[in-house]
Structure formats: C-alpha cells, structure tokens
C-alpha cells in the first residue's frame, strides 16, 4: 500500500518506521527542514518537505494514487484539513486523523474523515481496563454498525447476583455474548443462567444503551 503520513513528529517518525518494516510504501510530509533531514539521513528518501494541508504539495507526492493518508500532526485543525484535501482533491479512499481533543471525533466523522484516533481516549480505555472495580469497560467499537462490545463485571455489590438472565430487563439492541466466571470455563449465556459474583459478561450494545445495560447487569 502507498501510505502518506502528514507530520514527522515523534508519532509520525515511529509510525513511518513501523509501516516501512511492514513493507508498505510510505512517505512522510513535514514542514520543518531539520526534521526532514534527520528522517532522510536515517531512512533514505521517505520524507518530503512541505505542508501536507496544501493541495499542491499533495499533488507533487502523487497523492492521487495513495491508498491511505494518516494525519498525525499535533494540531487537530491541521489534521482535519489534510484529510479533507486528500479526500476531496485527490480522492484518497481512506483517511485517518489523530485527535488531541476527543470531542472532535463527531465533527471529523461528519466532515468525511474515515477514522479518528484520540490518544486521550486510548489511554483512558487502558486505565478503565486496568481498574478492576470499574463496572463497564469498552472492548471494541464497530463504527459502521453503531455498536460497541463491552465488558461488565458482576461484583459483590451487584444486586443481580443470583438472578437468572431471563430476569434481567436488558435495553433494546443489547445482547449478552459470553459469561466468563471467576472460576471455570467461559460459557454462552442461556435464559436460565444464574449470575454469580466475579462473573465477567461480554455484551454487544449501542453507545446510547451503555448506561442502561450497566444498570440492568450490575444494578449499580
């Protein structure tokens, strides 16, 4: 794949390295001449000096044949514009933008950026996974379907301990996929399955129903 990376900062640098190792054709666009030289000296002609938000620069590096553009500068507005120019001027099929402000995710999606990655959100999710008492953690988001896969823990405080699955009033579009008990093997939940303390429940739901699902499953 031909991948264009906008921004040769620390993130862009390591991304370039990793993508090259995976065998992709990669080009970094970087405004700063010194950064460009460092990258070129170390890895060869894989860095082009120029503004990745400019249609002219993108034309010079053959963006028209790029499979993907990844914008990882430190400024959300620059990442947005780089993706929009790539998409609208050069018909790049897939654009990915790094976000500083996680709240920009909705806007970027609305404006045609295919994927947004917020480091803040990623770290937050990792923290939530690490904190054992947190009742609901995100495992995966399926954007195209508007669904999320979550993990709900049943603790001693949960009012649902001892109840069966059919007694739970689950919100719409929520399905329990798997129960991983504190001890023993994971099993697919049936209507008669009884919830126990220490159970971990993997469920599919919508982002809107997350709170309701957490309530229904843990009672907290």
């Amino acid at each position, binding site marked *: 794949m031909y991948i264009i990376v906008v921004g040769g900062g620390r993130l862009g640098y390591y991304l370039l390295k990793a993508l090259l190792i995976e065998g992709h054709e990669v080009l970094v666009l970087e405004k700063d001449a010194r950064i460009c030289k460092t990258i070129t000296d170390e890895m060869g002609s894989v860095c082009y000096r120029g503004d990745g*938000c*400019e*249609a*002219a620069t993108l034309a010079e590096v053959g963006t028209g044949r790029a499979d993907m553009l990844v914008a990882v500068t430190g*400024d*959300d*507005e*620059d990442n*947005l*514009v780089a993706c*929009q*120019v790539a998409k*609208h*001027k050069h018909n790049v099929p897939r654009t990915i933008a790094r976000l500083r*402000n996680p*709240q920009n995710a*909705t*806007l970027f999606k*609305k*404006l045609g950026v295919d994927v947004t990655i917020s480091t803040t959100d990623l770290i937050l999710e990792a923290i939530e996974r690490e904190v054992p008492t947190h009742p609901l953690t995100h495992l995966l988001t399926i954007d195209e379907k508007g669904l999320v896969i979550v993990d709900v823990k049943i603790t001693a405080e949960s009012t649902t301990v001892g109840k069966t699955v059919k007694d739970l009033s689950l919100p719409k579009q929520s399905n329990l996929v798997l129960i991983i008990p504190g001890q023993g093997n994971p099993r697919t939940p049936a209507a008669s399955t009884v919830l126990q303390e220490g159970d971990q429940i993997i469920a599919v739901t919508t982002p809107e129903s997350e709170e309701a699902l957490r309530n229904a499953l843990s009672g907290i």
Partner: protein
Amino acid sequence: MKIIIMGCGRVGARLASLLDEDGHDVTVLDVDTYSFRRLPSSFGGTALFGNGIDEEALKRAGIEEADVFVAMTQGDNRNVMSCQIAKHIYDVPRVLCRIYDPLREEMYSALGLETISPTKVFAQLFKEKIEGSESK
C-alpha cells in the same frame, strides 16, 4: 443581528467595531486577551477569551443563537475548522471564512463554505491599480 467574530487582529477588530457601530450584537473571540487592545474604547460588544475550534468556547460566545459567524484568525486551518463547526454542528445561517491560500479557498468554496481569500483579492486589487495608473 448576533455576530461572532473569531480572531481579534487588525481586520477582526475593525470589523467588530464597524458592526458594533451599526447596532449589531457583536462577540469577538481570541486566544490572546492582549489582542483586545485593538478594540476601540467605545466598543459595546463582548470580547471573550477562547479558541474558536473548541465547542465549549463557541457555546460561551453564544454560537447557538448566532446569525453570523466570521473566522478571521491567521491560521487557514483554524478558520476552516471553526467555520465547519459553526455551519455543520450549530447550523449558523451565515458563515464567512478567511482563507489565505487560494487553492484551499477554492476547495472549501466548492465544499459549500462562503470563503474569501485576501491573497487573491489584494493581488487583483493591486494589479488593477498598477495597470489603471499606467494607462492614464
């Protein structure tokens, strides 16, 4: 009309004071409060510290009730992003965007933003001045 101007530089401050004189409800946003020195002492509108690409700041400036939003900062990308927030998230009826880079200006104009490129306008203006005086 309720008008929000993002960026209190020379042009932004002047525009704000002209609109204020005409009796409009003007709010100016800037990330540097020092810029507000450019506003005349007679300015009766609101000068607000905040970044126009931040939805919280836009809400504080009253974007939900605004009739017009103008982006006047030095950064083309900042202007483009804030204008798209105003237009697509808050449905502001009239959104005006300054974009220095003529290529970027053409693209966003094609995407439906009302854009002005000072670069294009001034080059044309000076060209006409020069060629006009030559023929005299």
